């Protein structure tokens, strides 16, 4: 892929900040991403959603960037900025013309060390975040995803939704937020990535000027509960007014560094089409899946209007998810039975050599498409450095090439067992009934 990491320079500052720089001189742009190893899996009870809320607070002014000057600080260079929080990571980015490089680094250094967390801003953001949570609940598919994950994990922090549970969002205090920020937003818990039309030496000088004086934080002690092995199928059913029925399956599956990750990606490609491994961009283009097994078994037969598989690289073992939208008028039980039949078939017979060749060709193309901009290249470097290592990314094409049909068959037998799965239904109640009750 473009941005393969081969031309990348990696440095660690004295304060522990990891810096990755890659020159890409194809457009007069630069993209800066700052990654923190903190996400919803790190949250304790009572503070679910704190990682994401901190992300919101970290756009609200710092000691040296007054609140009223945040707006426009990157836009004046024609740039865009954003951020996201998920289970393993919180990240911030700016992409703008290269002359904004110094400004982008200044913003990220301020975000790391000097955010304000003004009490009024914390309160105002509480309602914004609760509004975000309610907006998510408007989507039955998202609601089912949240319930399925919480059912599949009973101990590991991956069980909590990144947005948090409502009661925690209602009661969390400014001190909770600020304490969390101070603990995790330290250089020794961060990776800074710069990709674009820049000179590496110049970048490193500027990085040192902005970040070199930020003191390292205390080493972060992480106590991760290991999810006990699942020993039987679990089920969750949501009965709520709606127009459409949804089915989801979640299987405990390999982390990004597990040798089983590559065969899982290929198995998913055979079942639902290849996606690539860029969480920031891959989902924007649907996978090539017309000839994929589950598409043929469900969509082509008119049982479902869509089927989607998701095998995302994560730090610790997460889920392989299959999501299906039932066609209007088709019972969920029929969709489920057709889906399970296909999964049993791949467990029993494995995949063909021709399917494997096609899946590999798809992944090769998708990983090329994954790296089509400085923003996407920088995302990939920072994402993998945060959840595993850059090597995990750069060795992926070779690892995929080595996978055999037998590897995929063994993985299918291992992962797609009934005792390893959670099945979720969104089984809609007629909308009018609820209206009358309301």
């Amino acid at each position: 892929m473009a941005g393969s990491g081969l031309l990348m320079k990696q440095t660690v500052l004295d304060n522990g900040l990891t810096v990755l720089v890659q020159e890409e001189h194809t457009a007069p742009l630069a993209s800066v991403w700052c990654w923190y190893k903190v996400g919803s899996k790190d949250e304790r009870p009572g503070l679910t959603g704190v990682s994401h809320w901190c992300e919101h607070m970290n756009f609200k002014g710092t000691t040296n960037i007054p609140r009223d000057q945040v707006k426009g600080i990157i836009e004046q260079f024609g740039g865009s900025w954003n951020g996201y929080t998920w289970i393993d990571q919180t990240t911030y980015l700016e992409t703008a013309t290269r002359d904004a490089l110094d400004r982008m680094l200044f913003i990220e250094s301020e975000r790391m060390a000097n955010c304000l967390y003004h009490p009024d801003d914390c309160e105002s953001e509480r309602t914004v975040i609760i509004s975000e949570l309610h907006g998510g609940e408007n989507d039955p598919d998202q609601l089912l995803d949240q319930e399925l994950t919480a059912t599949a994990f009973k101990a590991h922090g991956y069980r909590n939704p990144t947005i948090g549970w409502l009661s925690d969002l209602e009661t969390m205090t400014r001190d909770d937020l600020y304490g969390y920020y101070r603990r995790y937003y330290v250089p020794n818990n961060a990776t800074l990535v710069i990709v674009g039309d820049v000179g590496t030496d110049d970048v490193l000088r500027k990085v040192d000027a902005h970040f070199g004086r930020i003191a390292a934080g205390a080493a972060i002690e992480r106590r991760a509960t290991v999810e006990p092995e699942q020993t039987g199928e679990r089920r969750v059913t949501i009965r709520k007014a709606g127009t459409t029925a949804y089915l989801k399956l979640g299987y405990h599956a390999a982390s990004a560094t597990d040798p089983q990750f590559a065969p899982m990606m290929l198995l998913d490609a055979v079942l639902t089409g290849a996606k690539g491994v860029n969480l920031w961009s891959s989902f924007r283009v649907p996978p090539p899946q017309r000839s994929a097994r589950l598409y043929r078994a469900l969509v082509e037969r008119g049982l479902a209007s869509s089927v989607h598989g998701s095998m995302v690289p994560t730090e610790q073992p997460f889920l392989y998810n299959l999501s299906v939208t039932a066609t209007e008028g088709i019972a969920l039980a029929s969709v489920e039975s057709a889906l399970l039949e296909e999964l049993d078939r791949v467990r029993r017979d494995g995949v063909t050599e021709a399917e494997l060749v096609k899946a590999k060709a798809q992944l090769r193309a998708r990983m090329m498409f994954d790296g089509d901009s400085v923003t996407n290249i920088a995302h990939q470097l920072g994402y993998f450095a945060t959840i595993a290592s850059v090597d995990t990314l750069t060795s992926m094409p070779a690892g995929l090439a080595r996978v055999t049909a037998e590897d995929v068959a063994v993985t299918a037998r291992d992962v797609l067992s009934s005792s390893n799965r959670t099945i979720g239904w969104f089984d809609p109640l007629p909308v009018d009934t609820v209206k009358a009750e309301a």
Partner: protein
Amino acid sequence: MSLVPVRTVLENGVTLLVKSTSKTPIVAINLAMRAGSIADPADAPGAAWLLSRVIDRGTAARSAAELAEELDSRGITLNIAVTRHLFSVVCTCLTEDFAAVLALLGDILMAPSLPDAEISTRKGEVITAIRQDEDSPAVQAVESLMALLYPGHPYGRRTKGSVDAVERLTRDQLSRLHADRFAPGALTAVIVGDVDAPRARDEVARVFGGWRASAARPVALPPVMPASTRQRLVIPMMNKSQADIAYGFTTITRRDPAYYAFWLMNVAFGQYALGGRLGDNIRERQGMAYYVSSALDANIAEGPLTIRAGVSPANVDRAVASIDEEVARLVADGLAPKELDESRSFLIGSIPRALETNAGIANFLQTAEFFGLGLDYDERLPGLLAAVTLDDVHAAARRALRVDRATVVVAGPYEER
């Protein structure tokens, strides 16, 4: 860095735009036919949309399974989209696959076989999608706003049609729509990527050069009538958690000389940073909404300016009042000089980002061709934006926005008191 695309019109009327780039060994193909939803026959709303679901499911030369295999083996997903005016087929492929993929796309656009079995399966998908839309407050709010802003006008219709209308659609209707609207003179092919202009031209000529079909008659659009009073519609959806507000006006056409003033006005009003003035007021100061923004969609006919927000049902009235307040302030005072300068710097500065990827360039060129903006539009755009004055923006606001003529739709767990 100017784009300087190469433009050619084939003898049969196909327009071709090529821009060679060499950053990665991939090519973006963007084919747009002037056959969007406004071309739906009066008795067949949703026909163009259903055609877009079926057109790549079999051709005279290839079965649906063969098409699926050819695309999937190259890692390609076709994005087939229907807007008001265009029916487009877009994809990105590896350079080595360019000729084969273009031939496949040509086959799909020129000779779809529209098998009955495929039509039946895709109808099920479209009907499911319409039912999902009916359960989405955000979609309900926007679609109802468009229906109220454009009564009796094709812009007011749902692109997907209704469940009943889709169920009634026949193969003959789809086939007729294809025969009437798909023609070389209605096609613009944009090719951007790791392929030089002469080779791209040869390949396009090889695929489309022999196509003969008479040019489609343009669809006559009725005049757009701006609202003369304030309208308000509430769609109670008591099974939902959050309410969506859609608030809007009809504005101007894309070719209107005031377009650049409207564009800058919209950026300052509802886009800049976290939603411009609207975001400052409703999200940042009042903490009422996760999202609030405005969008301008000037088109062949006078398109809408749409303000959207997602808020708690308890805050609906306050949010609508805040939007009214910001509209009134914009009409009364226009923008401050700093706001205009910031919005202008942002738009001019964002051009390199918009033109970074092959797909981004292809989209830009397709739009420029559609609206007749010229091959040097990327070079002229900064000057066009630079020429806009505060008075121009103020005039734009006074021309299109009036609180007492706003159309407001609320969908969600909210009922009129």
